[in-house]
């Protein structure tokens, strides 16, 4: 498909701007290079971007079981609410008495999310999960620094963790200590006990863990860290399995981030914008990024926490994303939150059961909201890899699971159906998975060649990296 720069012709344009109704002025040092932007008519513009949209698979196009990403349905009412002019047309620096509705959104979302997570305070500034991790770790750092406990320079991370955890720790100025996971992907408690000490600033963990199993030793784990003087950070990537069932705050976590674009149904937008709200216990509240919303004299105010780490972003966060998440929580409410979790877990176990007819599971059931298959034996037997199966799924209109993650499982496929998929859809998808397993034995070459029905086929990633072409250059 042509690039937008290759379409239209110089002179084609939309008619958008009126004539200037005041005397025109110009800069003395003005732009000298020509500005090469597309030149197309409105017809061409809408067709081009419509064509691009058609070359994308979203949740609305079909099953999207991308493990660890919680690709649940994105309710349309959320979009309507975020687009209300009373939200979308509000300047972030308006007088506080004219933005009471926006502040109420933040205050209400904070109250509800703190209840769901067992936290005492929350900031909505972080724009994504990784940004939330960075913010949460800075809270830990500020806490220790404030107590003059400056020898705490290390963050403990299990080896099964997503790469963002160690990367965030380093951005926050910490050294990373990797500890091994047990056979079930859970924390090796003895390894943790050996790793903690006076240099421990904290531990980063997800629970359920990266392979979809609830770590039953969680209370002991958080206790070990606390007794060593460290704090516990909860990566909320997997909260969808347990919301309304158990709370990170009750597990002993001091600070968490939530991916509103995963657990709370806001759309992923092709890779953002999300929101990585950070909640914390009372002891960390004085360090939250400012400003935060507080009630005062019957109205909402923006206030600066006493020992704030400062801003991590301009203004207050991805506000429109928070409006969507709040709309979702208000819709499903008290019963709906645990219902979503239970059905996410039910759906995952259902698929796990059906697929275990042929595929090898990396860990014993039951799983939480996602499970990991290892295709190592299939690969050894037939030469068909996890990648080949994934590409085979593409020809059936199914988005593949997360591939080759977690790194501790060989030939991994990680499946997370979410609660918003029906039994009918899952049955159809499981049939396809099982068919592909058979095909791996009867016609492996077909899978090595897949996909064949997509707009493009397997792409040369090595060539792309060796000779980077990162923008269009006119021939």
């Amino acid at each position: 498909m042509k690039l937008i720069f290759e379409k239209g012709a110089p002179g084609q344009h939309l008619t958008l701007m009126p004539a200037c109704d005041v005397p025109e002025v110009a800069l003395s040092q003005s732009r000298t290079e020509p500005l090469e932007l597309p030149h197309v008519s409105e017809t061409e513009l809408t067709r081009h971007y419509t064509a691009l949209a058609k070359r994308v698979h979203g949740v609305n196009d079909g099953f999207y079981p991308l493990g660890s990403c919680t690709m649940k349905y994105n309710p349309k009412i959320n979009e309507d609410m975020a687009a209300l002019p009373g939200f979308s047309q509000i300047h972030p620096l308006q007088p506080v008495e004219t933005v009471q509705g926006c502040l109420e959104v933040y205050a209400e979302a904070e109250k509800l999310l703190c209840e769901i997570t067992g936290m005492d305070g929350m900031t909505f500034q972080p724009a994504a999960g990784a940004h939330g991790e960075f913010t949460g770790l800075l809270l830990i750092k500020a806490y220790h620094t404030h107590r003059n406990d400056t020898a705490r320079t290390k963050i403990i991370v299990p080896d099964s963790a997503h790469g963002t955890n160690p990367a965030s720790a380093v951005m926050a100025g910490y050294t990373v200590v990797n500890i091994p996971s047990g056979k079930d992907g859970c924390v090796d408690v003895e390894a943790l006990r050996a790793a903690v000490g006076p240099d421990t600033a904290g531990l980063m963990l997800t629970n359920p863990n990266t392979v979809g199993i609830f770590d039953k030793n969680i209370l002991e784990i958080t206790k070990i860290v606390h007794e060593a003087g460290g704090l516990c950070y909860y990566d909320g990537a997997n909260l969808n399995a347990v919301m309304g069932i158990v709370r990170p705050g009750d597990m002993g976590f001091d600070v968490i981030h939530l991916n509103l674009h995963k657990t709370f149904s806001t759309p992923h937008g092709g890779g953002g914008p999300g929101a990585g709200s950070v909640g914390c216990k009372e002891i960390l509240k004085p360090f939250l990024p400012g400003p935060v919303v507080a009630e005062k004299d019957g109205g909402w105010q923006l206030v600066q926490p006493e020992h704030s780490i400062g801003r991590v972003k301009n203004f207050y966060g991805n506000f429109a994303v928070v409006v969507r998440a709040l709309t979702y929580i208000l819709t499903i409410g008290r019963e709906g939150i645990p219902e979503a979790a239970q059905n996410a877990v039910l759906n995952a176990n259902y698929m796990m059961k059906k697929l275990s007819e042929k595929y090898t599971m990396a860990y014993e059931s039951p799983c939480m909201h996602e499970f990991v298959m290892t295709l190592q034996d299939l690969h050894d037997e037939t030469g068909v890899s996890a990648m080949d199966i994934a590409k085979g799924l593409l020809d059936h209109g199914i988005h593949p699971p997360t591939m080759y993650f977690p790194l501790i499982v060989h030939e991994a496929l990680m499946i997370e159906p979410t609660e918003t998929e029906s039994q009918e859809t899952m049955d159809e998808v499981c049939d396809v998975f099982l068919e592909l397993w058979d095909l791996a034995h009867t016609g492996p070459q077909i899978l090595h060649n897949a996909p064949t029905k997509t707009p493009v086929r397997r792409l040369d990633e090595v060539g792309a990296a060796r000779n980077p072409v990162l923008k269009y250059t006119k021939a």
Partner: protein
Amino acid sequence: MNFPAELKYSKDHEWVKVIDSTTVLVGITDFAQSELGDLVFINLPQEGDEVTKEESFCDVESVKAVSDVMSPVDGVIAEVNTELEDEPQRLNEDPYGAWIAKIEKVSAFADLMDAAAYEAFVQK
């Protein structure tokens, strides 16, 4: 698999070409490049860097992984092969021609393997 007889080898799969008693050229072996797959970039060390035996002195990237390259000797980086920045594929295509760095002030490389020993080592 190619194991040139005139080179010495480390157990981290680097080759060493002795230029004189304190200067060597180093690169990755044929075995290493085949294990790493198609390499797309190398993060070269800087001239003047002190390098330590069995510690990382640069890294190489494939599409899906990054791997440390361990120094086979103690010494100081005298020169780096900047051509590899533009043509990382040479590490795959000609591993023994694609030297990564010239290291000087080298001490103690007696325990490096010769070609036969290294061949036996990788076949284990």
